[in-house]
């Protein structure tokens, strides 16, 4: 669906993106995660044909993102990160205007979305709050039912209920066959929403994996409370359990052994309580952002 191959785009001396390679299959909810200034928006601008790559190639639907941009965008819904709308634009007349430009009916679907999201269709953008403008931007990006949705930090300015409604909507679209490219700097929403995630750091892709693979690599924390504190001193942990904090009646450890084996071992010990945390993705993501990150590949792709 979307392919970026060694795409480089710099702004003079300023860093943009460096040899970015991505492959987004159709029907994927693809998270694009990175801190501010990492290169997320630059990548999106290349995808939309706003910036021309200085090296490499970007394509969508098999077409070149620069030379065939107008054709590609027939099937793209785009929500910019820093959304600015025309002051005269209300939901109703905005939908009509975009419908005329797209030459594709979308007003009825857009107004239905406005009703679902509680947006007055006749208020002009110049009088809208930031959240209302964001809803209008989302409606304009979604109403023509595009095959590819490119959303640059779409939940900014949305309240939690609206965020949840957007997630539901995006999941439904993906179930219907659409592809979502979801840029964010918030790990939580990417973790909740996406099937696959690429992490961009300083203009380079440092990871591109499924959430399941990342979770498999993420550390869990095992906490053991002992019945008899004195007894814990004589117990040796199994080889797949690294105890990093040992107290009289409590161990904190990270397992590298299968959880089932850990539970079997624990069942034979005098323990009062055993807690195994869910995989801690935050630690994994933070490891990619650290300056000494060994995972950062030289060619920018993972």
């Amino acid at each position, binding site marked *: 669906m979307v392919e970026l191959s060694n795409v480089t785009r710099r*702004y003079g001396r300023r860093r943009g993106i460096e040899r970015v390679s991505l492959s987004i299959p159709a029907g994927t909810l693809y998270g694009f995660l990175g801190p501010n200034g990492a290169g997320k*928006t630059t990548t999106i*601008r290349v995808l*939309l*044909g*706003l*910036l*021309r790559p200085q090296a490499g190639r970007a394509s969508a639907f098999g077409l070149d993102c620069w030379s065939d*941009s*107008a*054709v*590609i*965008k*027939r099937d*793209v819904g*785009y929500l*910019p990160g*820093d*959304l*600015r*709308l*025309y002051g*005269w634009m209300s939901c109703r007349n905005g939908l009509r*205007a*975009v*419908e*005329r*430009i*797209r*030459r594709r009916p979308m007003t009825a679907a857009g107004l239905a979305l406005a009703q679902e999201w509680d947006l007055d269709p006749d208020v002009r953008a110049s009088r809208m709050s930031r959240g209302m403008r964001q809803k209008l*931007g989302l409606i*304009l*990006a979604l109403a023509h039912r595009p095959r590819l949705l490119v959303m640059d930090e779409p939940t900014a300015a949305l309240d939690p209920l609206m965020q949840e409604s957007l997630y539901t909507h995006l999941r439904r679209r993906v179930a219907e066959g659409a592809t979502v490219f979801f840029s964010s700097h918030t790990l939580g929403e990417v973790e909740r929403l996406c099937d696959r995630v690429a992490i961009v750091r300083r203009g380079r892709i440092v990871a591109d994996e499924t959430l399941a693979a990342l979770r498999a690599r993420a550390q869990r924390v095992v906490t053991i409370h002992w019945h008899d504190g004195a007894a814990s001193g004589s117990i040796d942990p199994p080889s797949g359990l690294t105890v990093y904090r040992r107290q009289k009646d409590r161990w904190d450890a990270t397992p590298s052994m299968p959880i089932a084996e850990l539970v079997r071992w624990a069942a034979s010990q005098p323990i009062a309580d055993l807690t195994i945390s869910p995989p801690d993705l935050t630690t994994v993501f933070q490891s990619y952002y650290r300056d000494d990150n060994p995972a950062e590949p030289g060619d920018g792709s993972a």
Partner: protein
Amino acid sequence: MNRGLVLKWARETAWVTVAFAAALALFEGLIPVFFETFLEESAGQLLNLRFVQRLIQTLLGVEFEGGLDAQAAVSFAWVHPMVLVLTWGLAITICTRCPAGEIGAGTVDVLLGLPVSRWDVHLSLTVVSMAAGAAAVLAALAGSWLSGQFVGDEYRIPVRALPPLAANLFCLYAAVAAAATLVSSISSHRGRAVGGAFALVVGSFMLSVFAQFWPALRPAARFSVLTYYRPFYIIRDGWAWSDMATLFGAGAALWACAAVMFRRRDICTT
């Protein structure tokens, strides 16, 4: 061309077009009446000043002996600095809307997120700017014709001269619009684009003015748009095909350059 884009920009520029067109109509309507009164009552004392004479000669593109006669006065109505400012102002206001205006306002992300090529954008804005220019020129023509009904014969522009006058003014508008489009195509801020375009046309105007006072500059005056807009000769001789072709040709060349620049440039709002 994209009909939706044309309608969008027509909506956004409707009021400014109406305002400029009304001002042009009003000015063209009032100035013959003013001259009829002024020349008869004040006997052209002001016009005896050498500097004022030179300035009017510059604008008319003709040298006249003695005072300003009726024919020169009515042609001056079509080349008065206010008419030029209104015509150029409208062209620059509309033609700097995109890309410079849209990039500066940040709305270009929404605009170019739609399935339109940059050529569509360029062509659609050109259609809107040409329609606005035509409306303004027609308003000026209507004002001129209407005022002719209330002044004496010698201060009335012959009806046969009105179409060629309007056509030449439109060519002037088109040339300035093309220059403004070119400046806009390489700019990311509307203010800078407007400033750049105004600097170009004012520079062109000043070239004509200085050429009147400094003969060494006269060969350079061929690069001034005013050299190709001479209402005095149009009223006297009819259609100025050569001047119109020059303005139109220069405009077309600048417009084509603008299209190439816009198609090749990167668009970035941050």
